[in-house]
């Protein structure tokens, strides 16, 4: 049988069977519009409110602070643009980091065209920003701080509790893109001093196309979409009942099984990293070394002398799915800005691969992947002019 090994769980995850079962009735049996007054609508609304309570409970929020959206990108756009425009009279300065997801970076860039000023804080060699850095960047015009909870490429878990405390002390709004973190590591919006938080269901074994913006009660931002009066008149559009039910079920399961899944996924990742470092020369492990400050699912490597996309496609031919930070994969000419931001040389950034493990992966799959990977790296290096030169005299031309 042909192998199909999925090691790209940071891109998306499968929808858990348990989640899918809970969603199914809401497509064809309980199909009412949650905004309708009749019993069809009320049935849907009951399910939506149950999901809202589950989400709130999972992150330490109140149900009235949960707004359903179409996903992480919408939540990021809404939080950042909403806060910027609502607070424009107070100031025009936003603080974020150089390694945010494009949903945050591009949103900030769009605001710059509108006259906002944005500080993109640099990160250290493991991708960390510090609360001190954030505090130093604050000016009397600062209206928003947005720092991701965990990075999607290198797994860095930012010190958001400390950053949140700085934001609170200066009475500045704090938003965090927690898309990679929710369901994988504990988050408490009260203890972590979070005013707004973005999440997306498909990153924690829920369906695609549904997410949440948590917004602390009292935080005033404008509505993102105009139209009907859904979501306390804050987010127009008919509520996606099956998706919302799925998100609620997924987050409940993720929190229930968090300890177990964390342990399993971290064990696979740690074994993979240890073996790869021991068996392949001239590779660089990108991201935090301290596993307690890194997503358990994430491993990111640069392979010298070879290019990432050719590694990705070679693994693909063996039935193994990963992602790459190489320019060739994205279609742009620049390799991953995250890797460049942590100081990975551009040649090495081209040769980088992200392996992201999930709860359904097995140790056997990890071992199989390692064996295939050793052969692929050797084959591509034999094919590379850089490798021969390195063995001869110089490393790069």
């Amino acid at each position, binding site marked *: 049988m042909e192998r199909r090994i999925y090691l790209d769980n940071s891109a998306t995850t499968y929808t858990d069977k348990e989640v899918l079962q809970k969603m199914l009735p809401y497509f064809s049996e309980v199909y009412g519009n949650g905004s309708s007054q009749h019993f069809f609508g009320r049935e849907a609304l009951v399910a939506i409110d149950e999901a809202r309570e589950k989400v709130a409970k999972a992150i330490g929020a109140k149900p009235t602070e949960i707004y359903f959206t179409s996903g992480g990108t919408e939540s990021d756009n809404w939080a950042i643009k909403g806060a910027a425009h609502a607070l424009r009279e107070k100031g025009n300065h936003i603080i974020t980091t150089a390694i945010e997801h494009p949903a945050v970076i591009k949103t900030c860039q769009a605001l710059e065209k509108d006259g906002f000023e944005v500080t993109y804080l640099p990160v250290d060699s493991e991708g960390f920003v510090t609360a001190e850095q954030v505090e130093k960047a604050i000016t009397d015009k600062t209206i928003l701080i947005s720092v991701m909870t965990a990075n999607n490429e290198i797994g860095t878990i930012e010190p958001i509790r400390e950053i949140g405390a700085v934001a609170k002390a200066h009475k500045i709004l704090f938003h965090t893109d927690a898309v990679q973190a929710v369901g994988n590591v504990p988050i408490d919006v009260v203890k972590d001093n979070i005013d707004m938080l973005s999440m997306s269901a498909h990153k924690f074994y829920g369906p695609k196309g549904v997410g949440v913006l948590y917004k602390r009660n009292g935080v005033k931002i404008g509505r993102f979409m105009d139209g009907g009066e859904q979501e306390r008149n804050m987010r127009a559009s008919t509520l996606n009942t099956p998706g919302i039910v799925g998100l609620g079920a997924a987050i409940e399961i993720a929190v229930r099984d968090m300890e177990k899944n964390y342990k399993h996924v971290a064990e696979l990742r740690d074994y993979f990293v240890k073996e790869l470092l021991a068996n392949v020369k001239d590779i660089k492990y990108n991201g935090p070394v301290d596993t307690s400050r890194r997503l358990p699912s994430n491993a990111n490597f640069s392979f010298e*002398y*070879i*290019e990432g*996309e*050719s590694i990705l*496609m*070679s693994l693909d*031919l063996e039935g193994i799915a990963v992602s790459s930070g*190489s*320019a*060739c*994969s994205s*279609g742009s*000419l620049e*390799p991953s800005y995250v890797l460049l931001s942590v100081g990975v040389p*551009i*040649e090495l950034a*081209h040769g980088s691969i992200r392996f992201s493990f999930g709860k359904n992966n097995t140790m056997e799959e990890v071992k199989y992947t390692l064996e295939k990977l050793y052969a692929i790296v050797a084959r591509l290096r*034999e*094919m*590379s*002019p*850089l490798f*021969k030169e390195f063995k001869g005299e110089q490393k*790069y*031309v």
Partner: protein
Amino acid sequence: MYNEKVMQTFANPKHVGYIEDNDGAGKVGNATCGDIMEITIKVKDDVITDAKFRTFGCAAAVATSSVATDMVIGMTVDEALKLTNARVVEYLEGLPPQKIHCSVLAEEAIKAAIEDYRKRQSEKAGK
């Protein structure tokens, strides 16, 4: 995004290597851009009798290197100079738009190897 032909060529490339006693060698691209192609050729009576490549790059770069070297073997150097990236792409039954530059690189690497051959020939003649 790649068609079957490109994937198959990438999986089983022809003419990988480096001709030590080559008559011409060309190297184009750089590591910063993520693509380097190096082609060496053997020439007898102005006919390319052998060609090999080494490539640092994506699957498309490897596939186009393989096709370009395969095509020029048996050609006269004049014919090989007329090899266009369009013919390489056509042979591969198409490449994604963002990968067309890989085929240009293959064309350039062949040209660079032939230029090197010609330079060496004229140096010999000058002696």
